[in-house]
């Protein structure tokens, strides 16, 4: 019994330890994703919520010595960061479906990046203060950094860099050209949408194929971003599923015929080699043995 108790205790301990570590590790991320909006709101509106005022006031007004406070300059930078952040996020949300995050929001991302670069640069602002240390890395949470990092991940994940020209000032020519070709196809689809789809399949095939080829070229050059990929996906789905223009399985008979012919060949082969090839025989050889073996065999013979 004692051993069991000890074991149970140990297991409990282990679990406890696990739980501890996992909460420590997981918490920040959860907080960030779930409460992201709330925090965002907090940043957007620098005025504190009256109902919470009492909690925060305690902390805020207890006051730190002068040299630990965040300088006014940095607070100002933080406010601008907050504004641009919220602008970008609003833009992202509105461009979520169908995906247009690159073409619609590259401007606001550019602005956001500017201000963040400003914050994270180590050159001194007025009053000889660097906001990098005070804003970005003075606490465990590193909220500003986390927030920015999240959006940067979104940007990298959507591969917008391949669609937006360097310096984030405009879309690349490739992208614009693709958009034009895409629109051409879509117009064609619209034109023939009514009535028989087979006409659509025939009429729009050329433009659609041109689009497809352009797309695979861009895929090879790695100049695709999520906007293009998504629009292409949608077009393809339209083409294949809605208009049903993919190739039909029309050649069942020849394929079956050729296959069964091929499958028939080995049967012939094995049958003919069974019938016509002479069977390989082995010549038995009788080893020299002493007498006693013989007797065994004979007895075995008689028994059986």
């Amino acid at each position, binding site marked *: 019994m004692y051993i069991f108790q000890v074991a149970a205790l140990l297991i409990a301990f282990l679990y406890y330890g696990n739980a501890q570590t996992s909460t420590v590790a997981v918490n920040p991320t959860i907080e960030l994703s779930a409460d992201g909006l709330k925090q965002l709101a907090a940043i957007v509106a620098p005025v504190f919520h009256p109902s919470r005022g009492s909690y925060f006031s305690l902390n805020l007004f207890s006051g730190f010595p002068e040299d630990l406070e965040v300088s006014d300059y940095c607070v100002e930078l933080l406010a601008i960061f907050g504004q641009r952040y919220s602008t970008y996020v609003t833009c992202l949300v509105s461009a979520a479906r169908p995906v247009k995050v690159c073409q619609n929001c590259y401007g606001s991302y550019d602005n956001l990046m500017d201000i963040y670069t400003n914050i994270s640069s180590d050159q001194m602002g007025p009053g000889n203060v660097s906001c990098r240390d005070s804003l970005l890395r003075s606490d465990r949470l590193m909220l500003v950094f986390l927030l920015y990092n999240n959006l940067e991940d979104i940007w990298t994940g959507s591969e917008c860099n391949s669609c937006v020209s360097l310096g984030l000032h405009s879309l690349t020519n490739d992208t614009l050209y693709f958009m034009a070709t895409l629109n051409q196809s879509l117009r064609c689809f619209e034109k023939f949408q009514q009535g028989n789809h087979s006409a659509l399949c025939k009429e729009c095939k050329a433009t659609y194929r041109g689009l497809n080829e352009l797309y695979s070229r861009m895929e090879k050059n790695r100049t695709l971003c999520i906007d293009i990929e998504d629009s292409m996906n949608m077009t393809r789905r339209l083409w294949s599923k809605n208009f049903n223009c993919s190739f039909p399985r029309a050649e069942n008979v020849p394929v079956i015929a050729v296959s069964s012919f091929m499958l028939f060949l080995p049967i012939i082969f094995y049958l003919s080699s069974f019938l016509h090839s002479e*069977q390989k025989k082995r010549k*038995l*050889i009788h080893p020299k043995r002493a007498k006693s073996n013989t007797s065994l065999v004979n*007895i075995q013979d008689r028994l059986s």
Partner: protein
Amino acid sequence: MANITKKVSWSSRGDESGGGERTPLLNGSEEVRYSRQLSGDGGMFHIGRLSTVDLEEDMTSDEDSVRGCPKEIPHNEKLLSLKYESLDYDNSENQLFLEEERRMSFLGFKCLEISRWVICGLIGFLTGLIACCIDIAVENLAGLKYYVVKQNIEKFTEVGGLSISLILWAVLNSAFVMVGAVIVAFFEPGAAGSGIPQIKCYLNGVKIPRVVRLKTLVVKVCGVICSVAGGLAVGKEGPMIHSGAVVAAGVSQGRSTSLKKDFKIFEYFRRDTEKRDFVSAGAAAGVSAAFGAPVGGVLFSLEEGASFWNQMLTWRIFFASMISTFTLNFFLSIYNNKPGDLSSPGLINFGRFESDSVAYNLYEIPLFIVMGAAGGLLGALFNTLNYWLTIFRIRYVHRPCLQVMEAMLVAAVTATVSFAMIYFSNDCQPLGPDQSEDYPLQLFCADGEYNSMATAFFNTPERSVRSLFHNPPGSYNPLTLSLFTLTYFFLACWTYGLTVSAGVFIPSLLIGAAWGRLFGILLAAITPNGSVWAVPGKYALMGAAAQLGGIVRMTLSLTVIMVEATGNVTYGLPIMLVLLTAKIVGDYFVEGLYDIHIKLQSVPFLHLEAPATSHWLTAREVMGAPVTCFNRIEKVGTIVDVLSNTSTNHNGFPVVVPVAASDDLGKICGLILRSQLIVLLKHKVFVELARSRLTQRKLQLKDFRDAYPRFPPIQSIHVSQDERECMMDLTEFMNPTPYTVPQETSLPRVFKLFRALGLRHLVVVDSENRVVGLVTRKDLARYHLGKHGLEEMQLAQT
């Protein structure tokens, strides 16, 4: 393994030669007649455990009737072929050897040790290089083939005429396979198959003709490239093991007999004992290169091959393995334009099982065990089917042109079946962002999707395995997987044993991975929150292990290989359990695939232990008798006659001194081998000549080594009539202390001596040290435990 037992009864020539030939032994007639085996079609008879033996049984009646007409039976598994000889693992400690040892300095022995290491390094390096060549060649050829076929299919999907693509695919496959089959069937039949059974036999001590020749290596490498590129259901891993062994056998000799080039190095290693050690290192290096599993390679050599083992050898073998996988890695990194990046350690790369998906829970262990049992059952089915097919092939498809045709047909049918499967499959999956499919086929799928069946069939088997392991859940639907498993099972079973060089590892893994993944998918579907823990990739891995274990029945080494190939030690326990179960279940029905093929080749293979219930058999019953012996000073004519007697292709001859005039049995004083006698005859070491020419160079051990391993046949040595009358003194050259046993020694004891010491001949003596019989490998290997107790196999000419 030529020995006494080879003497053919209906020949009368043998009676004239040899010392104790005509002596009737043990109050019986000198010939043994097996009346049962001659009448029975299976050619088997059983030895019951009988205590009363009637020695007076008269059996001359049917003896005459069979004399003179050799009985012919169809090939079956219960035969021992005369083709195979034993290797001489026992060192002959004759006077020459002792002299050489005296001459050799302490430094000389140190140098030997160093050169052993050098050789092992070279073995590893060359094996890795060969693996690299195979990999690159297969990749490019198969890539080219799939590219052409893909273009063609895409073209014809649109305009119609897909049956032409089918024919194109089949023809391309057949063409590749034809090249592979022709070189194997016409130039070097020894290169057929995976080569693992042959290496297993070699390490067991059986000399398989031409198995470690350079020609075999060349044919093997080219053959495996062709057969994998030809789209057969085969892998290139098994042949790597054979290739490694050939490299080892070649490098360690410091010369190539085929190329007639002698580098005059490593001469000391020109004998069977040393060569065997290097061959086991080569096999390990092969495994290591094939799977990127150096430890697995060492254990493979240990498990499959080595009856002989010591710590230093292990360490050297490990060195060779490591060098091999490193070399492969290094050259592949250069090929992939990432020099110095050593992250592709094997030919097959299972990919890494990472993150949360690798975790397994306690409650999954029973599931793994169930999978192991399923693997054992399927493996047994595979082996049984392949057994019947192989028998058919040996009996009826034995002409080279037929074999080539068969291989081509299999290739064409493989392409056809694959095409039909892909054509009629409705399983379409969206293209992933990372483009894990190398040749995605769209066919009738919607744009932006690919045919999921094509990832399994329209791909080299290695890649298919990897995508089964690693593609995210949902990449395959259950119907696709079950159809794939079914077809691939039969295709792989049909393919193994063709006259092409190809291994069975990858097809087994692929079959297992397919049904394992299927199992995982079903599990996720039927259990609540199963989709959380039942990751299909994990079950695919376990299925692959189970299927492979069920087919080849390897245990320890396979576990380690799988663990190393996946780079995941966490899976050690489940993989071990799976393999354990697979072996237990499979062994209940039928042996492992390699053992079946060894049996069907009629190889006298010595298993770990003598068959149980054989203790009542004594050396007297087992041995061959009477024995052809030589006197210490023997007439050259007698020796030449004995050696050139084709019906008694003996290899070892006891040297005796006659005891008394009345007795024909001589007292043993040594053992001399055929190869030694031939070298002696070639150099004309006759007593008379030695007297007349005092300055004649003394024969050294080097002269024997130079002739190794292809001693000239006796027919090529000319002995004049005068020389026939000369005498030869064998004292200096014979092994003065051969192993002997008394007549009453039980079979398991004799067996242990053979197995542990690597003997080739064991002299049976009576109480006065007179030679009464000789036990050889075939005398022991013929006993095996059958369904009805102890059975005996027959010798046959193949």
